[in-house]
């Protein structure tokens, strides 16, 4: 047939440039990538960031130390309390104070709840990205329970803003411990439910196994951390290697997978939820009595009750609000294991009431760097699965 022959002769063979985002459901925010396609095969991915850049670091440099905490939580809003935790730990290191025992255990509880919170939403949206609608409804059910817990004790649901330099803003609300305990008791069976939907689901395995291969060597070179590097075969967890908040006193395992693919990252996050639950059970049972904030006049806010009854406390409180705390000159780096990996805070102090320089090591930002490397040569639809397996939070990527 001559007509068809002429069609074939005119078949175009140049590469197709496709714009993905910034508003695309699978980018979970405002992330744009220009994808170069050869047919359906991805040849190159050029990420374009910055649509959500708010000048976080610059803003912090112009705020008192205490005022950075709510801002910090708006970076990685999925694991909000991880941000305030790393920031508070860093400032505490500068001031050479340590939060009291009870505050440390509560911090662990809040941090692990945040981790589960973040992984739950990741699981729901990731499954949704690869075509499974149901898990989202299941995970949002448990996520709602967690938000109610945050709301109960801190007021905020998404961003609790509960941690303070030297400890916490106030003690746990009545009923928090019981509700957390009942959550930990049924949560394992809920994770089983998610697994029945995905782990042995043939369609899910087809979409994820062998997709987005990131070798361990590349993972280290690209600075990947968290579930990304654990999915590539390295059992590296900062809670184990450089413990903070007393993590050395809890028993938990670091899951590790050697598949290097999207499916491995899924398995890691599922297991991390179980391990977080394990930590929660221990923390709830060992929660000691005692103060919730360290005492150090001039840098840590005195307890609320004392402000109304003691003259000195009132003065300290007033001076802290008006002038802010002034850590000694120096530079400090603190990192923690956030739901996404090594979250770090580097602060340079010049002795003034504001951080002279604050650098945020955002794990999602650095993990995202591997995207182009691991998605070359895959199908376009796999690119969506890979992107969601990196677990980006755009507020943290752009800061």
């Amino acid at each position: 047939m001559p007509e068809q022959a002429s069609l074939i002769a005119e078949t175009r063979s140049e590469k197709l440039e496709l714009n993905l985002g910034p508003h695309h459901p699978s980018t979970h925010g405002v992330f744009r990538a220009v994808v170069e396609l050869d047919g359906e095969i991805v040849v190159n991915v050029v990420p374009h960031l910055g649509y959500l850049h708010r000048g976080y670091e610059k803003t912090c440099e112009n705020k008192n130390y205490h005022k950075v905490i709510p801002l910090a939580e708006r970076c990685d809003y999925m694991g909000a309390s991880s941000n305030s935790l790393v920031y508070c730990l860093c400032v505490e290191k500068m001031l050479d104070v340590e939060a009291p025992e009870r505050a440390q255990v509560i911090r662990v509880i809040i941090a692990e709840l945040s981790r589960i919170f973040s992984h739950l939403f990741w699981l729901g949206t990731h499954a949704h990205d690869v075509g499974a609608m149901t898990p989202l409804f299941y995970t949002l059910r448990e996520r709602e329970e967690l938000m109610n817990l945050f709301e109960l004790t801190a007021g905020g649901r998404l961003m609790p803003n509960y941690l303070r330099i030297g400890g916490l803003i106030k003690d746990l609300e009545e009923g928090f411990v019981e509700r957390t305990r009942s959550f930990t008791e049924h949560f394992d069976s809920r994770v089983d439910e998610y697994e029945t939907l995905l782990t042995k689901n043939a369609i899910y395995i087809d979409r994820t196994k062998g997709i987005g291969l990131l070798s361990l060597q590349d993972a280290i070179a690209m600075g990947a951390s968290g579930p990304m590097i654990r999915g590539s075969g390295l059992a590296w967890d900062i809670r184990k290697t450089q413990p903070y908040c007393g993590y050395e006193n809890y028993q938990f395992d670091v899951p590790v997978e050697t598949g290097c693919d999207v499916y491995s990252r899924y398995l890691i996050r599922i297991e991390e939820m179980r391990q977080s639950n394990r930590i929660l059970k221990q923390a709830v049972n060992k929660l000691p009595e005692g103060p919730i904030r360290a005492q150090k006049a001039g840098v840590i806010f005195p307890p609320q009750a004392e402000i109304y009854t003691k003259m000195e406390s009132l003065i300290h409180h007033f001076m802290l609000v008006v002038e802010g705390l002034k850590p000694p000159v120096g530079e400090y780096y603190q990192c923690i294991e956030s739901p996404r990996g090594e979250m770090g805070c580097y602060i340079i102090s010049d002795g003034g009431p504001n951080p002279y320089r604050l650098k945020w090591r955002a794990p999602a930002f650095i993990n995202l760097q591997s995207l182009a490397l691991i998605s070359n040569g895959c199908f376009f639809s796999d690119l969506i699965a890979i992107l969601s397996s990196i677990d980006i939070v755009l507020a943290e990527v752009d800061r």
Partner: protein
Amino acid sequence: MNQELIRDKLSSNFPQEVIQSAVLFGEQISVTVSAEKILEVCLFLKEDSDLAFDFLSFVAGVDRYPKAPRFEVVYQLYSLKHNHRFRVKTLLNEPENGLPEVDSVTGIWPTADWHERETAEMFGITFNNHPDPRKLLLPENWSIHPLRKDFPLQGTGEDTPDLPS
């Protein structure tokens, strides 16, 4: 390996002009390295089997305006093998014309790519031999460097003529 041993190892392998100072803050030492030799020092830190800093946490710029030397570039390192951290920095003077320059470490740690692009646009520091020196977070046509200390936080269009409208 503790911080003092790492510092001693560095200073025994490089002359004093290269390792300019070492200051302990908390549990970590910050070593200042001359900008010309930053690549050599970084390569040594990565390749030496006792140090083995295979993981770069971040690269950050610092503006010490109005002090001189004005800029610092900070490299926060970690060794997955030995589980130790270390910090190296280099000082850059502001040239009379153009932007301060330092060699890119992307050849040693590929993860430095985005960190250096961000530092370059935010502080106006040029990273020599960077494989992809485009802007990262800011629009390509902006010529401002927002994280510099003399960058205004607010003002009218006349106060901030170099700000894109």
